[in-house]
């Protein structure tokens, strides 16, 4: 049964109540005490989110890169380039990197190329970790076309960002931890941040590139229209899969705001410092907040 309260909750920065409707979550049914979480705009039991997300990425894996280009009109490449040029891996010598939710290898490849081209560094290594085997297969296939295949510089692991096995990923072993467009899909973000804190060496950098909240109301309007109209249709047309892309745009709306996420990062034990956006947090908005880079240093 539709209730009138649907339209009125939501983010106060959005002027129109129609946008507020997009932020609406269905409340858990009364009397249920099972722990639930969000899967896009749906409410699902916490234990099932992981397999639901796995289902999404199993089905999008083969067309993931094509769809990224189509949906962002190629702009995701600019964001990722910006991300890497901010981190400058290899500027202070070879780094051990771990790239979470790294599936198809976009970030890993950029890290290795940057180190090689700018600093003639062939000792930097990247461990690509992803919970989804299909995505890793695509990444492996892509790396086979590069010079890093069969070298110690790249390795692929299937693991859960919330619980990285200690034997494969010992504590205090990495200089750089990156996660691009992946952290919004984990069931418990604080757990993922805790693992990031564990595997990084003291002084190591945590870097996260993720979709975030758009503050400018006009841009937000256009962005919402585009997200909810065009992207699921692009999914239907190009990949024959509307639901996965509907999940994608909904999961972006459910992700915490820049301030909240920066607070979660500093709660996990990172020094976020900086004042780039004038709000006391260390994040940099890209394209008005459509994407955002959060960084932190392990103390």
């Amino acid at each position, binding site marked *: *049964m*539709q209730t009138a309260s*649907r*339209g009125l909750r939501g983010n106060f920065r959005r002027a129109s109540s*129609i946008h507020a*409707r*997009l932020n609406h979550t*269905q409340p858990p049914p009364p009397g249920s005490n099972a722990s639930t979480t969000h899967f*896009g*705009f*749906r409410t699902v039991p916490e234990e099932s989110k992981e397999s639901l997300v796995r289902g999404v990425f199993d089905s999008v894996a083969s067309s993931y890169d094509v769809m990224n280009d189509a949906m962002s009109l190629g702009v995701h490449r600019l964001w990722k380039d910006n991300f890497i040029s901010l981190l400058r891996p290899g500027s202070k010598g070879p780094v051990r990197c771990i790239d979470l939710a790294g599936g198809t290898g976009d970030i890993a490849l950029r890290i290795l190329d940057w180190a090689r081209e700018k600093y003639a560094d062939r000792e930097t290594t990247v461990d690509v970790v992803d919970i989804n085997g299909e995505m890793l297969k695509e990444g492996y296939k892509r790396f086979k076309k590069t010079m890093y295949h069969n070298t110690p510089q790249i390795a692929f692991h299937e693991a859960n960002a919330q619980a990285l096995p200690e034997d494969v990923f010992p504590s205090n072993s990495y200089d750089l931890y990156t996660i691009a467009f992946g952290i919004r899909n984990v069931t418990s973000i604080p757990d993922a941040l805790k693992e990031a804190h564990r595997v990084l060496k003291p002084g190591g950098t945590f870097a996260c590139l993720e979709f975030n909240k758009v503050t400018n109301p006009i841009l937000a309007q256009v962005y*919402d*229209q585009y997200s*909810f*109209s*065009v992207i*699921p*249709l*692009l999914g*239907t*047309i*190009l990949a*024959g899969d*509307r*639901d996965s892309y*509907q999940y994608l745009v*909904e999961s972006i709306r459910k992700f915490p705001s820049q301030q909240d996420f920066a607070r979660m990062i500093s709660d996990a034990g990172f020094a976020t410092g900086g004042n780039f956006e004038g709000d006391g947090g260390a994040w940099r908005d890209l394209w008005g907040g459509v994407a955002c880079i959060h960084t932190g240093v392990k103390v």
Partner: protein
Amino acid sequence: MSLLIVSRSGHYLRPTVSYISLLHVRPPQTRSLKTPPAYPGHIPLNWFENAFLAVGSAFMALSSPKRGDMVAALGETTAGLALPRLRDRMLESEEGRRILKERPRINSNTIDMNKLAQLPEGTFGHSYVTWLERCGVTPDTREPVHYIDDPELAYVMQRYRECHDFYHSLCGLPVSVEYEIALKFFEFANLGLPVAALSATAVVRLSSSKRSRLFSEYVPWALKCGSSARSLITVYWENRWNQNIGELKKELGIWDPPEPKWRKPLSEAKEAAMKRAMLHTPQ
């Protein structure tokens, strides 16, 4: 109690008056909340999304012929006024009214293939099953309707899609591209749906000899036969399995096209049969 489940394929805001609602006698609806789906699988679209999907599915269907869901989407987004006209045609005939009331579906669960195969040769049911085997297809590959807002019109669209194979077997045409196009011309002349005419653009995929044969022999047949035959959407095929096929063709006003070339059967039916056998394997 509402039987509708809010689909998780949620949908952005709809403008105040849906253009489709203008076609019916329903009062225009102002939707400022998310439109609930009208039937399982319904995905409401606004005019922009409809146009976007129409163009996108047209390109995709042409470039990638295996994407049956794209042809389906093209049909639904371009149905326009033709669909209500089809429904009205059904309402004008007694048989059509019965179909709209009972809403029969055509798939391997609702049709007993074994029983049809046992019918005497020369009956419509027998020739349908023979045609299915000869082409190697099953009635299960039809994409459900998503983008039509009115549930009754959605059923008419679904029925149109599911009856396509009956037209194939009645006219004795195989499933290769040139005969599909010929049948689309036939459907356009008989039923009037725009997608049938749009499918004619698939001629670019044909070699020039096939194309010339299509336009010199099959298209004239299709247009003449399709326009003079009775509206095939009003035929309750499931009640006519036992009918003699020659008699059925005379009743509907259909005559045979020029003799087609039959190719090797597709693997659809074999795969479906293997899957069924696996499910029924004793433990």
